[in-house]
């Protein structure tokens, strides 16, 4: 049986995108800091990439006590077998009690592979993490069945206790430029970098710079937007907020906007600070994907539309008449 007392410390899995450390990494440190403080242990960030040296201190400023770094040309792109193999070696050497990652496509791929290799538990897409201070166990809370049920889960006898957390679930802490930490570079033999994958190319989605899962503000459109052309209005609004455009399933099925923008049970689950649902009726399948948003504004012509039940502010009216006025007033006040 595993001696769980040999496992100490909280780890977060940093992400590198476009050769830069992604803000997701700093968000994770905010999640991890709370846990590390409650357990009175170190907080670490693990970062793998081709060349990440320049930004490592930033991870310390944002809350890491220790940074584990692995650099190699083969780490430029995400080759799942290589990433999982290196993480497995790191965990086996340093034995963290908790290891969390973001529920991005990266985290949701590498973490289940890693947890299977380590034969430990993994809880997906948590919206809350706490520590049971008596038992010193991680309490992982997550929604299921479209947010209708919440479950709190623990991993009593296996280590590390692993979880992915919903992106945008927490803001990064304020960076503290005077913080100091330990930076540990690890090197592995070339054999560790052998892969069954060959990375070929990446084509950027022209309709958005910011994936909806990572947006602070989402302007989402549904059937009530009536036409794909009218989505330009939503993009203009999203630009003002520095946010992204989302869509209901029907808008995607009509071909008005690509699937990567779909919010809901068969699309993405999002938790922005502000979600504006324009011309979306709010079928349960849609609400499942956005009910954890901080503030919800709904605009719909039908006063009985279910979206109003989950709205903090609702306007019974035509989105096509209201959005242009909102756009005009907001851009005027910006000037």
């Amino acid at each position, binding site marked *: 049986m595993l001696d769980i007392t040999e496992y100490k410390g909280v780890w977060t899995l940093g992400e590198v*995108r476009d050769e830069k450390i992604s803000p997701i990494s700093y968000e994770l440190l905010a999640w991890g800091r709370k846990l590390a403080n409650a357990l009175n242990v170190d907080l670490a960030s693990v970062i793998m990439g081709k060349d990440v040296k320049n930004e490592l201190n930033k991870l310390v400023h944002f809350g890491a006590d220790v940074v584990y770094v692995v650099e190699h040309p083969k780490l430029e792109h995400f080759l*799942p*077998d290589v990433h*999982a193999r290196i993480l497995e070696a790191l965990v086996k050497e340093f034995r963290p009690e908790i290891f969390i990652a973001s529920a*991005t*496509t990266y985290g*949701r*791929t590498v973490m*289940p*592979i890693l947890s*299977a290799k380590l034969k430990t*538990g*993994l809880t*997906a*897409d948590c919206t809350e993490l706490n520590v049971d201070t008596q038992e010193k166990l991680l309490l992982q809370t997550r929604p*299921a*069945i*479209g*947010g*209708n*049920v*919440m*479950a*709190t*889960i*623990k*991993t009593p*006898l296996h280590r590390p206790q692993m979880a992915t957390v919903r992106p945008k679930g927490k803001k990064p802490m304020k960076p503290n430029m005077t913080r100091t930490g330990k930076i540990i570079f690890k090197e592995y033999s070339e054999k560790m970098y052998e892969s*069954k*994958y*060959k990375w*070929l*190319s*990446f*084509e950027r*989605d022209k309709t*958005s*710079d910011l*994936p909806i*899962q990572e947006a602070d503000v989402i302007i989402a459109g549904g059937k009530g937007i009536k036409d794909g052309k009218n989505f330009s209005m939503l993009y203009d609004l999203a630009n003002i907020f520095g946010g992204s455009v989302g869509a209901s399933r029907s808008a995607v099925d009509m071909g008005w906007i690509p*699937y990567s923008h779909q919010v809901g*049970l068969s699309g993405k689950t999002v938790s922005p600070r502000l979600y504006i649902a324009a011309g979306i009726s709010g079928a*349960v399948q849609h609400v*499942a994907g956005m*009910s954890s948003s901080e503030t*919800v*504004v709904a605009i719909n012509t039908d*006063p009985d539309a279910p979206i*109003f*039940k*989950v709205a*903090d*502010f609702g*306007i*019974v*009216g035509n989105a096509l*008449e*209201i959005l242009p006025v*909102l756009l005009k007033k*907001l851009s005027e006040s910006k000037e």
Partner: protein
Amino acid sequence: MRIAVLIKQVPATDKVKMDEKTGTMIRSEMESELNPLDMYAVEEAVRIKERLGKKVYITVISMGPSQAVEAIKDAISMGCDDGYLLSDRQFAGADTFATAYTLSAAIRKIRRFELVFTGERATDGETGQVGPSVAAQLDIPVVTYVSCVEKITDDTIRVQRLIEGGHETIEVSLPALLSVVKEINEPRIPNLAGKMKAKSTTVLTLTADQIGVSLDKTGLSGSPTRVVKMFYPKLSRDGRIVKARDVDTVVDELIEFMRKRKLI
């Protein structure tokens, strides 16, 4: 080429009840369906079969209670060839690790597959973890979020992945497991011939004994995670709803509301 498609039967209704004590779902007396996101996995397997011809054989595999045979038959009616249901009381209460353990053991038992397909996630548990975990436990590569199969040869497959900000093209050696997203295709409606075939196909049931899994690794006893609490969150927000008699006024009110919440 042999293809396996892993599917799950999920509750069709959105109002699902859970057993507060065990933390597991109460599945009896509830309408169930093939997980909608698995239909894309089934469809993609069938399209590969159509593209490559008769030498492709598709096996549907699911773990669940006896009524999950219906979901397997739905997949067969879309063009799969045969099906296995992994069903045993010992499997109950499994988390994603134990589920993946049982599925991977059954795959090993059934035969070698060059390709294994799964949906992105199930609409009830919504973890998306079982596919990658099965691949890891079979020690084969996994490609997640597959939005397009570009090319298959005898020993490699080239696919696109839908990831944050765009599409990535990647090639991987076979055997491999692919989890697909909704963007990949438009699942067909089964035709009469398909339905007839599903009706006449016998779905084989495999128990823990027949698969040869050790009981301490399946079901609740094989699960590293434990549900300690369940609760039903209040989703409704009792927000302020206003009628847009005058668009100008109502937009001003909205802006005022967003200001108060420090959103602008």
